[in-house]
């Protein structure tokens, strides 16, 4: 292998490609490398970034969650409605977390205990939860009464908006959980070989329930931040989020076959998705083309991944 090939197909290949792409974009696209645009870019990937943290665990353990978009919308709705009704933002947040966690728990229990395929289960809950959000709001957006709620998304710390901090903190926490805890290692082991993990004493069904419950909780956090940013609970918010999140994970080298995941990869995947969209906006490319470009990026990422595992196979 030539050294270039080695670099691109190696462990850090994605990071290298990302760095090159970033440098090219920064040099050629006007207004890209400004503080305002950078913050805007990061703001735009907060939802995807936060949800990708737990989606990574889901995929790494050979599972799949399609219900994340609906859960984000539903828990955002609940947060707004509960805080409007009680006048307390804290109650709204707790209600949102409970609802998100409950959706995840139901997913987990159905998948792990009743052994229903994750794709089917979450396809069902995706529609059920979206339906619940529409029923609860009668299909309309619910405005936020307490201006304090806006502050969740508007407030800044050290000049950087809170949601970006939340995303960054999630990246750190879940990166630690994946690499440095028994939970993370067991997730990867289950993805690598579920039956061997079970016989080695890993409580596989409990792990899977936990992973889905966590996914639900994290979706609730993302939902609350999203609702705060769009200043209302929208039953139709975050449609198609599940596909963007899974794309970001796959871009980041998370294997759909399970057993392989890295937080840095997922972060890069999320950023690539964000930059592509940001650049197209800056260049005034019509939104319709953006779908095509996003699809192409995903295809390229999967092809690259394929080349990479083939290269790894030869090395092994």
């Amino acid at each position, binding site marked *: 292998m030539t050294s270039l090939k080695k670099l691109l197909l190696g462990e850090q290949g994605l990071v290298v490609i990302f760095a090159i792409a970033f440098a090219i974009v920064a040099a050629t696209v006007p207004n890209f490398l400004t503080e305002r645009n950078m913050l805007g870019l990061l703001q735009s990937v907060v939802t995807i970034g936060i949800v990708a943290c737990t989606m990574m665990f889901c995929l790494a353990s050979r599972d799949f969650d399609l219900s994340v978009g609906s859960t984000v919308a539903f828990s955002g709705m609940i947060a707004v409605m509960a805080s409007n009704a009680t006048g307390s933002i804290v109650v709204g947040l707790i209600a949102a977390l409970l609802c998100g966690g409950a959706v995840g728990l139901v997913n987990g229990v159905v998948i792990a205990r009743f052994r229903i395929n994750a794709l089917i289960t979450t396809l069902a809950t995706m529609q059920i939860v979206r339906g619940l959000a529409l029923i609860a709001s009668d299909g309309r957006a619910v405005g936020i009464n307490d201006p304090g709620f806006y502050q969740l998304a508007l407030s800044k710390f050290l000049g950087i908006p809170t949601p970006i901090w939340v995303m960054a903190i999630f990246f750190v926490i879940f990166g630690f959980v994946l*690499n*440095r*805890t*028994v*939970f993370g*290692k*067991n997730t*990867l*082991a289950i993805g*690598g*070989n579920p*039956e*061997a*993990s*079970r*016989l*080695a*004493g*890993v*409580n596989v069904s409990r792990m899977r329930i936990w992973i889905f419950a966590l996914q639900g909780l994290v979706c609730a956090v993302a939902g609350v931040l999203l609702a705060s940013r769009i200043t209302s609970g929208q039953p139709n918010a975050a449609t198609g989020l599940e596909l963007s999140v899974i794309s970001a994970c796959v871009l980041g080298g998370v294997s759909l076959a399970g*057993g*392989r995941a890295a937080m840095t990869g997922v972060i890069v995947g999320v950023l690539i998705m964000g930059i592509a969209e940001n650049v197209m906006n800056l260049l005034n490319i019509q939104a319709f083309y953006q779908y095509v470009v996003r699809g192409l990026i995903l295809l390229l990422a999967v092809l690259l991944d394929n080349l990479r595992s083939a290269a790894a196979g030869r*090395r*092994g």
Partner: protein
Amino acid sequence: MQDFLEFKAISKGYPGVQALADVSFSVKKGAVHGLMGENGAGKSTLIRVLSGDQSADTGEISIDGSTQHYRSVRDAFDAGVIVIHQELQLVPELTVAENLWLGRFPGKAGVIDRSRLTNVVREKLSEIGIEIEPSAKVASLSIGERQMVEIAKAVMADARVIALDEPTSSLSSRESEILYSLIERLRSQGKVILYVSHRLDEIFRLCDSLTVLRDGKLAAHHADITAVTREQIISEMVGREISNIWGYRPREFGDVRLEVKEIAGSKLRTPMSFTLRQGEILGFFGLIGAGRSEMTRLVYGADSRSQGTVSVDGVQVTADSPPHAIRAGIVLCPEDRKLDGIVQGRNIEENMAISSRRHFSPFGILQPKKEAELAEQFIAKLRVRTPSRKQDIVNLSGGNQQKVILGRWLSEQGVKVLIIDEPTRGIDVGAKSEIYEILYELAAQGMAIVVISSELPEVMGITDRIVVMCQGRVAADIERDDFDERRILAAALPDVANASQLPNQQVQSR
């Protein structure tokens, strides 16, 4: 007869390993040629080169006098070379006939000629003496029958060279018998058969000639197998004399360690009980499907119990799940290492620490240093052959994988009962002795050990007592002093009257 298949100075290296170095030998037409060697000796690589899956760095293969230049499995197939791997390549949801025609269905304009499909296959099958209904779904066949279908596939494709990679490793003795007679027929049709096996009995029974590989080099080539002895082959394989590979040592037994009372489950209907003392090695013997593995899975809690109790040192295990069993001190090394034992894509260290790390990971946070120490300790203690503890477990040989799984359990605290299912399946002679040694040492320390094996010489060689199972029931419970091959085998057979018709190779010890 002239040389039909020739390997000429084949070399093949992988980064860090010279898998094959200058291997040359030839096989005559109409011969069954054995290929033996320890795991890692280069057999698999040679087979891969032959199958076109990998190309040799240097050297060439010639068939019927013409040098082959194939670069893919497809090219090898066209040249008449077919390799039948341990993992069979059949589509379970298609019928036997459909599998045999796969890729070139007979018919016009995409419409399959169904009668031709089955009739041609039926003819072919009866020609080579395979009694399988062509319209049966492959999923409904036993592993042995599927193997027959694979061979039939090779015959259908007019293969001139058929290589079989450990074909009998998962077959019952009856199925093996059928396979042997099929191979005899293929030989009489002038095919060249390359037969990879760890079993000396079948090598002597089937093969005309034999090649032994060791460390990627040709260790010996015997053009006439009748001129060699078992001991000679074993020493050629390992490069040293092994007088007694069992190395059994008598031990003192302590109090009852494991007590299993009336356990049953969905796959083992008749309730079963047995006890096991400290320091005792108990063997379970039976034909495939006799319920041995099912029984141990119930004891370990891998499958749920419908009734019965398991107690360790007089304390009943509270629930039937692997975590409960492990906490009570019962551990299992599963029968199918690939499927149930190793976690693919993870390294040795992680595969070892997967269970025991909970003891030294406060709040679930890993301690990489301790895991590394633990891995190094057991790699050294169990003599796992690997360049590093960071090696992906998939890259290890079967024997070394088994040692890693043993290490997984030895690093647990307070293991009292070790259940080891087929401890040495697919493991070479040298590593076998090492694994037996480990078992003896553990037993001497007071551990109670359950060994399940389909190899009678092995169970007789290493255990203190044998429970023979037959059709889900205990058929006999025999102490070491009373071990008798015929008696054990007779108890294992569903129809005792068949005992007299046993194939001889079954009762020969090696």
